[in-house]
């Protein structure tokens, strides 16, 4: 009993530390511009003022859509690519496939910063620099290691006999993928989609480096640019930050159930 009290005490302390920035974010976003000051930053707002949300949304809505145009295709493409890679690397092993898998995994350890210059040069030479398709390509490629890992591990848990049964039933390598493997991988798709959606949506560096025209910039870059050089409208800035969190939050809320389901179902033992 005593142990439990101590445990909860410690947990609550950490929870408070964790929630402090969220608290500041929320109270500030509900204040008017004149109400915001360092002295009163911990105070609750005098009334509910949604003006800052309206103003933030107005400034960011184009970039919000840009982010959707970027994140949705990039997530879908990389999840599909990952499932195909994972399927081949786990169920159609060939000489050297394990080495290729290891090499693909190394891609996870390449820091974003180190490839910026070659990335810009490559995108420029294929005419995708400064555009959303360019960002999509970048994120799809950068996501290959993690999604391949997710799907390969998932498919490694699927009995090889299912693939063999399908071969005898008359499928080829593609048929088995489309009819069987693609459809039994919902738990892996949920994991890959949650992961990719969140990281692409929140990504800043590539977006900042690869897009300069405000009309194609994703929302993360636009949010940073909201802060002018002379003064910062903190209430609008905070409201913008809250708006940004909505899509990943929705993904968690809707896919989270399947996520848990997938984890509980565990193996796909026929």
């Amino acid at each position: 009993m005593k142990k439990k009290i101590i445990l909860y005490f410690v947990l609550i302390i950490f929870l408070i530390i964790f929630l402090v920035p969220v608290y500041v974010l929320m109270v500030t976003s509900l204040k008017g511009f004149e109400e915001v000051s360092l002295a009163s930053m911990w105070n609750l707002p005098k009334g509910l003022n949604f003006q800052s949300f309206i103003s933030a949304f107005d400034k960011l809505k184009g970039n919000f859509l840009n982010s959707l145009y970027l994140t949705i295709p990039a997530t879908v493409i990389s999840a599909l690519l990952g499932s195909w890679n994972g399927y081949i690397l786990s169920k159609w092993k060939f000489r050297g496939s394990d080495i290729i898998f290891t090499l693909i995994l190394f891609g996870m350890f390449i820091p974003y910063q180190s490839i910026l210059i070659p990335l810009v040069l490559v995108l420029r030479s294929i005419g995708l620099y400064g555009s959303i398709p360019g960002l999509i390509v970048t994120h799809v490629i950068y996501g290959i290691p993690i999604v391949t890992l997710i799907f390969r591990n998932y498919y490694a848990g699927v009995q090889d006999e299912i693939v063999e049964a399908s071969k005898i039933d008359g499928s080829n390598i593609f048929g088995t993928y489309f009819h069987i493997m693609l459809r039994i991988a919902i738990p892996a798709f949920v994991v890959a989609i949650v992961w990719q959606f969140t990281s692409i949506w929140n990504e800043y560096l590539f977006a900042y480096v690869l897009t300069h025209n405000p009309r194609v910039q994703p929302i993360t870059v636009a949010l940073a640019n909201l802060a002018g050089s002379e003064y910062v409208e903190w209430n609008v800035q905070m409201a913008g930050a809250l708006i940004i969190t909505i899509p990943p939050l929705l993904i968690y809320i809707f896919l989270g159930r399947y996520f848990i389901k997938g984890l509980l179902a565990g193996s796909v033992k026929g």
Partner: protein
Amino acid sequence: MANVILKNLTKKFDDVVAVNNMNSTVEDKAFVVLVGPSGCGKTTVLRTIAGLEEATEGDIYIGDRLVNDIAPKDRDIAMVFQNYALYPHFNVYDNMAFGLRLRRIPKLEINRMVHEAAKILKIEDLLKRKPKQLSGGQRQRVALGRAIVRDPKVFLMDEPLSNLDAKLRVQMRTEIAKLHQRLNATIIYVTHDQTEAMTMADKIIIMKDGIVQQTGGPQEVYDHPNNMFVAGFMGSPAMNFLDAAITDRMILKGGMFELNTADRIKKIIKDNNLIGKEIVLGIRPEDLEDSNFVQNIPANSTINANVEVTEPMGSEIYVYVDIEGILITARVNPKSKCRSGEKASLCVDIDKMHLFDKDTEKSYI
């Protein structure tokens, strides 16, 4: 015609020889069981026939057609896997219909075929269920259904019953045997369970270390095993082996026993010139009986030894006795009074002894 012929079949995985120069014929409509301990290559043979593995050397004919370079789907075979390998996202109907759809059979025809197969296997009320809603026995029926619905020439079954509990296994054993009669198809069945082999097969192929040890009917391999491996593998409890020397008067002499020989055995001894030689004597447990239950015990046909353990089975008692440090099993009358720790006298059926060469382990005939 759907016989299966294996000619000089060899399969190597890197340096490991899984199947070594196998020559076998599976006759049309036969039920052939490949049996052996794990790692003996029996599953590899089956997978090579299915086309899931490529033969390193040798030829495979299915129905007089050389199939070495033919894809699994075009070999006109169906396979039943040990772990069922049902498609988890399809319901039972779709699991069975999948192969037919890929073969572009008309919808109505598929419907008729699936229902017919489901009727044979009594799974008609399960057609809408997903595999995970089925019990082990039901899943195995669906796996069988998926095989029979395509009406293939040859069924390949890879330990289909080993994931079932003991009672269900016995039940499905009979069902598969009935299915074989009903379908009139060729079945090649892999198992490590010699009981399954004995009860179901028309012909048994016994393998060890990638090499065929013996091929023959169940009773034939049981009564006349080629070597000590087959003798020990087929039959449960296993055959007992004792070292013995053959005296000038054709008596088998061990450290603790002297046994007379019947005329059949005397002929074997003469034919093979065994007088004065050391051999291995094989006696099946059922050929050893508590002497109290044998009338007219012939001279020199009993072994006296200490009883280590007794296992009453109801219909019989397994008595384990110690002979020269080797534990020997006897299946004796259930009324036997043998007790562990006491001496017992066991009578040997001297006509049913097996003699083996000590070095080659081959059977003398």
